[in-house]
C-alpha cells in the first residue's frame, strides 16, 4: 500500500510539473471544463444522481450512449457515467460478474442453453431478480463499398449473400449488373472484408443473409464470420480497409460508413431499391415483434421482410438491466440515467450520429419498463 502510494505521489508530482510547465506558456484553463458544442437535452426533467455508474458492452451503441451520457452529465455535474465499448459478450460477462451496473448488447440475453449455460438464468442469478433487455438504439448495418466510378449500387439478399460467401468474385458479374441497369461496373475483383473479432454486427448481418437468401447462405448465423474474405479488427478496421482498397466491400454500422464517407448499397427486398436512411431503417424496427414478456423488451426483427420502403438490415442494441437491484442506490442511478436515455430529446439527437430512431410505441414501453426498475 505505502509503496504504491509513493509511486502515486511521485507520479502526481511529475504530472503536476508537466501541467505547470504547460500553464506557464499559455493561459490556464479551468480543470475539467466542458468543451465542444454538443446538443444537450433540456435539463429540466432530468433526475440527477451523484456518484459513479459503470457500464460496458456493445461497440455498436458506443456513440449513442456517449451522447446520452454527455447530455446527462451536462445536466448533472455530480454524476459520472462510464461506458466501455468492449463488445456485447464482454458486457454481458461483466454484468454477470457484477462488475458493471448494466450491459450494452447487440442481442438480447439468450434464453436457450449454450454449453450448458443459459445467459438469462445467469444474469437472473447475478441480479437476484429477472434481468430485462431494454432496446435503446437501433443501428442500421450498411453494406459499404469502394469501387472506382460506382457511387450508386443496389444489391438484394441473394446477390449480397453470394458476394460475401465468395460465389461472386468480380464487380461486373452479371448478377450484380442485372440489379444495376445503367451503372458501368468495372471488372475489379471483389475484396470482402469481415470482422475478425466476434461481433453482434456479424451475427445480425448473417441473420439477415440467411433470412433473405436461405439457399445461398447456409451457415448458421453467429458472432463469428462464416463467409469468405479478409478479416480486420473491429468496425474501424473493416471500414478503413474498404476505404483504402478499390473493390472492397464490407458490412459495418451506419455511423462508420458515414465517418469514412463510404458509399452504401441500397437493398432491393423485392419492391425496388431501398436506400439506408433513418426512416427506412426505423420502419424495420417498428415491424419487429416483442419476444420478451412483460417489461423484458427483447425484439425479433423480420430480416426476410419484403415490404416496400423498409431497409431490412438493422440491429437493435439493448441495455441489459436487473429488474430489481440488490443495491437500491445503484438501481436508482441506472433508472435515472436510462430514463434520460429513453427520453424523446435524447433519442432525437441520435439520428445524426448514425442511429435509426426507435418507434414511439417501443419508446413508450421502454419508458414504462425503466420506471419499473428498482
Amino acid at each position, binding site marked *: 500500500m505505502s509503496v504504491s502510494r509513493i509511486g502515486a505521489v511521485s507520479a502526481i508530482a511529475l504530472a503536476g510539473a508537466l501541467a505547470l510547465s504547460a500553464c506557464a506558456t499559455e493561459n490556464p484553463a479551468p480543470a475539467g471544463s466542458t468543451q465542444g458544442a454538443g446538443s444537450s437535452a433540456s435539463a429540466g426533467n432530468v433526475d440527477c444522481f451523484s456518484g459513479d455508474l459503470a457500464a460496458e458492452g456493445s461497440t455498436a451503441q458506443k456513440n449513442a450512449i456517449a451522447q446520452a451520457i454527455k447530455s446527462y452529465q451536462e445536466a448533472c455535474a455530480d454524476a459520472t457515467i462510464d461506458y466501455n465499448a468492449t*463488445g456485447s459478450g*464482454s458486457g454481458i460477462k461483466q454484468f454477470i460478474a457484477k462488475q458493471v451496473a448494466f450491459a450494452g448488447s447487440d442481442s438480447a440475453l439468450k434464453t436457450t442453453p449454450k*454449453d450448458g449455460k443459459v445467459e438469462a438464468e445467469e444474469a437472473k442469478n447475478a441480479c437476484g431478480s429477472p434481468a430485462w433487455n431494454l432496446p435503446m438504439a437501433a443501428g442500421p448495418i450498411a453494406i459499404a463499398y469502394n469501387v472506382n466510378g460506382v457511387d450508386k449500387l443496389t444489391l438484394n439478399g441473394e446477390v449480397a449473400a453470394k458476394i460475401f460467401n465468395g460465389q461472386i468474385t468480380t464487380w461486373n458479374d452479371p448478377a450484380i449488373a442485372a440489379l444495376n441497369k445503367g451503372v458501368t461496373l468495372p471488372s475489379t475483383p471483389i475484396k470482402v472484408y*469481415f470482422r475478425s473479432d466476434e461481433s453482434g454486427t456479424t451475427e445480425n448481418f448473417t441473420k439477415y443473409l440467411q433470412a433473405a437468401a436461405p439457399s445461398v447462405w447456409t451457415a448458421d448465423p453467429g458472432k463469428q464470420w462464416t463467409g469468405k474474405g479478409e*478479416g480486420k479488427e473491429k468496425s474501424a478496421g473493416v471500414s*478503413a480497409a474498404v476505404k483504402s482498397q478499390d473493390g472492397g466491400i464490407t458490412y459495418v454500422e451506419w455511423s462508420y460508413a458515414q465517418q469514412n464517407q463510404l458509399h452504401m448499397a441500397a437493398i432491393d427486398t423485392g419492391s425496388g431499391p431501398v436506400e439506408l436512411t433513418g426512416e427506412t431503417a426505423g420502419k424495420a424496427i417498428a415491424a419487429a415483434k416483442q419476444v420478451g414478456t412483460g417489461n423484458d423488451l427483447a425484439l425479433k426483427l423480420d430480416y426476410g421482410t419484403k415490404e416496400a420502403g423498409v431497409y431490412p438490415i438493422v440491429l437493435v442494441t439493448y441495455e441489459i438491466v436487473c429488474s430489481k437491484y440488490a443495491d437500491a442506490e445503484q438501481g436508482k442511478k441506472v433508472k435515472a440515467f436510462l430514463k434520460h436515455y429513453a427520453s424523446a430529446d435524447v433519442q432525437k439527437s441520435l439520428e445524426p450520429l448514425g442511429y435509426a430512431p426507435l418507434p414511439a410505441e417501443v419508446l413508450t414501453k421502454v419508458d414504462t419498463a425503466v420506471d419499473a426498475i428498482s
Partner: protein
Amino acid sequence: MSTTSLPTPTGQPTESRAAGRSGRAGDRLFSGATTISGIIVIGIVTLIGVFLIAQAIPALLRNNANFLTSREWSPGGDHPRFGILEFLWTTVTSSLIAMALAVPVGVGVALFITQYAPRWLRRPAANLVDLLAAVPSIVYGLWGLLTFRAVIRPFEQFLQQKFGWFPLFAPTPISGGTIFFIGIVLAIMILPIVTALSREVFDQTPAAHKEGALALGATHWEMIRTSVLPFGKPGVISASMLALGRALGETIAVTFLVSALAGGTPWTWSLFNGGETFASKIANNAAEFSNPNKTGAYIAAGLVLFVLTFVVNSIARVVIERRKAFSE
C-alpha cells in the same frame, strides 16, 4: 572503491568483529531476500501454468479436431473444433522475419555506437535508438496501420509479381496485414531491445582485449571480430531471446495490423498470406469469452505460445551456459 563514497544505514564494513557479525547476519538476511524473490518468481509462473493448464484441459478434452494440426477455429457451441496450426505458422514466421532483420541490424547499430561512431555522436545515437524503445506498441500499431502499410504494399506487390513462382512469395488476395508486413513492423519494434542490451555488453569489453588485438596489428574490424563480439556473444543471445519473446507475444500492434483469414481458406506457404498470431487471436476475441469452454480453447492456444517461448529460451540457455558467468 565505492565503499566509502556511498553512505549506508548499516555499519561500515571496515570496522572490526562486531561489524563482521552484523555482516554475517546481514548476509543471511540479504541472501534470504534474494532467494525469496526468486521463489516468488517460481510461484508466479507455477500459478500461471496451473491456471493455463486447468482452463485448457477441459476444453481440449471436448475438442473434436486435432489441436495441433487443424486449421479450423470454432471453439464455441456444443461440438467445438479448433486447432492452432495457422496461428503457429503466422506467429513463428513473422517472428523469424523480425529476428532475421532486427538482430543483424541491432548488433550492427550497437557496434556502430560503441566502436565506430565519433565520440560526439555516441551518446546522441544511443539516446536516439533508446527513443525507439520508448515508443509504445500501440503507437507502432497506429503508425503501421495508417502510414507504413501504404509504403510496404507496393513492395509486396512487386515481390509477388517478380518472385511469385517461389512458394514463400506466392501471390495472395490479402491486401492488409500480411505475415511479411507484420514481421517488418515487429523487427522495428524489437530492434531497440537488441541494440540497447548489446550496446551495454559491447561497452564492457575489457580494454586489454581490444588493445591486445590492435597491438597485434589487427584492423578495427578484426579487433571487433576477435575481441568485442566473442565477449558480447552471450549478452547478444540473451538480448535476442528477450526480443524474440516480445515478438512472439506482441499483442496490440499485431491485433491492429493483422488480416484474419476466413474459415476454409486454402493453405499456402506464402508470406503474403494473412492469418492471426496467438496473441492477436486471443486479444481480438477476449471480449467474447462468454463461457469456460470457449475461453479454454483460447487459453490452450496461449499455452502453446507459452511452451514455444519456453523451448526457444531453453535452447538459448544451453548456448549461454557454455560460457560461464564472470570468469572470462
